[in-house]
């Protein structure tokens, strides 16, 4: 029998882990001579108390939903895709090429085209590590790490040597044409007398991210492919017995994962910067790991975790603006969340299990 109810494992363990991460983060803030409560208040104020703050929070959350889903899908097939960062970079390249070289008549068509390009490029970047894992047994964690660095070199080369407009100094593409500019939340939700989300980068891509959550949920829990992905993740020998091809599942799951990571570029590159810059991903590929771990690889969990990290990012930016706490505090929090939910989860789970066991024996 299970030692504790499924809901406790799914909800209590991550919640306690986050609590531990929060306490440690508060101690870090104290240690650098600032007040944790004031910091928290500043973060809430900057990220949630104004529509423009929400505009940033949701903008960041959009990135993290995509990368979190990417890591989750791979997790279901028991693969650790650390390559979200590289896949998102190459996805950005796809977006840039689609926006720059295809004369789109309207942003909606451009969005469709760029979505395809982003997913395709991201998936393509995940293909070789997946293939090598499936066919040659090359450890996917290592190959995807290597591919992150190779992606950075590719992007660097493309931006410096190929796509940089003549005479421009910084390694970036030209501005995308007007017709590819996506409607922001400000465009969509403001009225003439009441402007909301002013100047914030949240854009229509957020809704694509929500759609992606639904799509991943259907994929994993309602389709035959999802059944196979999860079965393979639980037991490779079982998959073989059932006629599920490990090679196919490994490759397909990674292609989906890479495609989702690539989609992130829609938000940063097409939605916000409107050109491709060198550091478009800003580590969001890695935050996907934290988001997937915290969200238990479930789209609802991923959405909630992505919103939390969106809040942390926006709040962290506010902190850096108004206090002496640098933005890197968020990196620390992110590290603690990954540590407690992904690596030290047994430290949390074991005591919980014994509590539930003793409760049960008392009840019995």
């Amino acid at each position, binding site marked *: *029998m*299970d030692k504790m109810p499924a809901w406790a494992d799914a909800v209590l363990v991550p919640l306690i882990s986050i609590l531990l991460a929060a306490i440690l983060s508060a101690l870090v803030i104290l240690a650098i001579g600032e007040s944790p409560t004031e910091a928290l208040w500043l973060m809430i104020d900057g990220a949630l108390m104004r529509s423009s703050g929400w505009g940033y929070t949701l903008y960041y959350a959009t990135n993290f939903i995509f990368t979190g889903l990417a890591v989750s899908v791979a997790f279901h097939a028991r693969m650790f895709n650390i390559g979200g960062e590289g896949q998102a970079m190459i996805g950005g390249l796809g977006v840039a090429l689609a926006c720059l070289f295809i004369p789109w008549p309207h942003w909606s068509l451009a969005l469709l085209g760029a979505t395809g390009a982003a997913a395709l490029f991201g998936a393509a970047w995940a293909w070789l590590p997946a293939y090598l894992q499936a066919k040659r047994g090359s450890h996917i964690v290592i190959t995807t790490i290597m591919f992150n660095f190779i992606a950075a070199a590719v992007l660097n080369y493309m931006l410096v040597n190929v796509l940089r407009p003549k005479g421009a100094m910084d390694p970036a593409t030209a501005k995308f044409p007007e017709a590819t500019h996506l409607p922001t939340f400000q465009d969509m939700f403001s009225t003439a007398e009441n402007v909301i989300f002013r100047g914030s980068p949240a854009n229509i891509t957020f809704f694509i991210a929500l759609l992606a959550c639904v799509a991943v949920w*259907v994929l994993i829990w*309602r*389709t*035959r*492919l999802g*059944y*196979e992905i*999860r*079965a393979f993740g*639980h*037991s490779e*020998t*079982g998959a*073989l*017995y*059932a*006629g*599920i*091809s490990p090679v196919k599942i490994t490759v397909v799951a990674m292609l989906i994962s890479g495609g989702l990571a690539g989609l992130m570029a829609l938000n940063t590159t097409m939605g916000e910067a409107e050109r491709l810059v060198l550091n478009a991903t800003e580590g969001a590929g890695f935050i996907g790991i934290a988001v997937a771990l915290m969200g238990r690889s479930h789209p609802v969990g991923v959405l909630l975790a992505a919103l939390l990290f969106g809040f942390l990012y926006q709040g962290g930016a506010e902190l850096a603006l108004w206090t002496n706490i640098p933005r890197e505090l968020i990196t620390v929090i992110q590290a603690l969340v990954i540590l407690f939910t992904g690596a030290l989860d047994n430290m949390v789970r074991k005591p919980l299990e014994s509590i539930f*066991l003793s409760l049960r024996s008392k009840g019995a």
Partner: protein
Amino acid sequence: MTDTPAIELKGISKAFGPVQANKDISIRVMPGTIHGIIGENGAGKSTLMSILYGFYKADDGEIWIHGRKTEIPDSQAAISAGIGMVFQHFKLVQNFSVLENVILGAEDGGLLQPSLSKARGVLKHLAEEYELQVDPEALIEELSVGHQQRVEILKALYREADILILDEPTGVLTPAEADHLFRILEGLREQGKTIILITHKLREIMEITDTVSVMRRGQMTATVKTAETNPEQLAELMVGRKVLLQVDKVPATPGKPILEIENLRHVDDQGVERLKGISLDIRAGEIVGIAGVSGNGQTELLQVLGGYCHATGDIRVNGTPIDLTGKESDGRSRRARGIAHVPEDRHHEGLILPYTAWENTVFGYHRDAQSGSGFLMDNAAIKAEAAAKMERFDVRPPNPNLAAKNFSGGNQQKIVLAREIEQNPDVLLIGQPTRGVDIGAIEFIHQQIVALRDAGKAILLVSVELDEIFSLSDRIAVMFDGQIMGERLPSETDQTELGLLMAGMTNGQEKAHG
């Protein structure tokens, strides 16, 4: 012989959560004897030995070694107390040499060279004394299973163990290797070593032990002198009631051949030929049992037939050949051709343990029309059908939402059986149908297999339990070293003849290889 036992256990108890693995166990083993501990799977033998070797701490009870009360908190303490253990699954470093494995943990000083030289000498001496020849410089991965086991014994002797525990030592051995092992054990007994032999094979107990203890459901039910007992009595003590050796069934009326296998060959990843030209027919309404010591190609045969292991040769189902290497050689294509498969290992193959029971009832059939339409699965329909299947196969508890890992072994097996039999296949492959299954479920499972036969299906049964082969099969084929040594009718053969075939001997002649 003195009166002080080499090992005495007093009232050992150990519980894992609600499961009482060992309950108030007491035994005395005199020095210079071989003491057998016999019991079914899950009777608590292994737990008891783990306590003796410091893997688990007993909740209650005392261990006395040579008349001294001894605490064994870890393996180091067991070794110091003179206990050596040969595990069922060897504890060897595969890419180390024999010497390195022997000295590991028993080195003299910080530098390796002196230890290696010393061990080389000791090993030479031990080899001569106990027939434990093995090349000290060979890597473990290059050695046969029998030789690897010798290394395990050498490890214990090198540590000057005078009490040697062997856990199911013959499970992986050929009969010839097993005989050699017994000669070694007899030699050790002559030198005054005390040996505890854990097994579930009555024959071994009768052949070599001086005294024997029987365990059942965590308790020691009896300790007797081997000379004063017989296999029937031990079997009864083991299972707690008369063993049902005969399954009720009418004589088979085989029809036309359904499954035809011709010259089947398989070479594994290491380049070892595991199937060396198997030919076998199975007709409608017939159970063909494959007897053999495990590891002689039975697993590979099932996997090839099940579609997830490549091979050469011919297999025909209902007269049409099936694809052995190409696109159609996977489990799904086999199922489409009417071959259902209850695999030997339900934990790693037959079930996805974290999946719910209902998800498991379509495992392997999840792409069929019965499981949904298009890309989607019809979870509600599967769940409803699962509840009905579980009802029909008496799965307890009949809750389709429970994860497979939460069912007992017997009920897990019933879930697999329900899934495969309800597909109404032409051919049923079934491996170790009752391994780790409680007695009550065994009868039910056997009845289901016979019922399927009576419905005119072809059934291939693989089992290492000779009793099971005898009671279920209409025809018996014996496998040894990737070949079929011979086919017999159960009415015209006996355990002795099959035992010889299983050992690779035909007409009293041992085959040249092996």
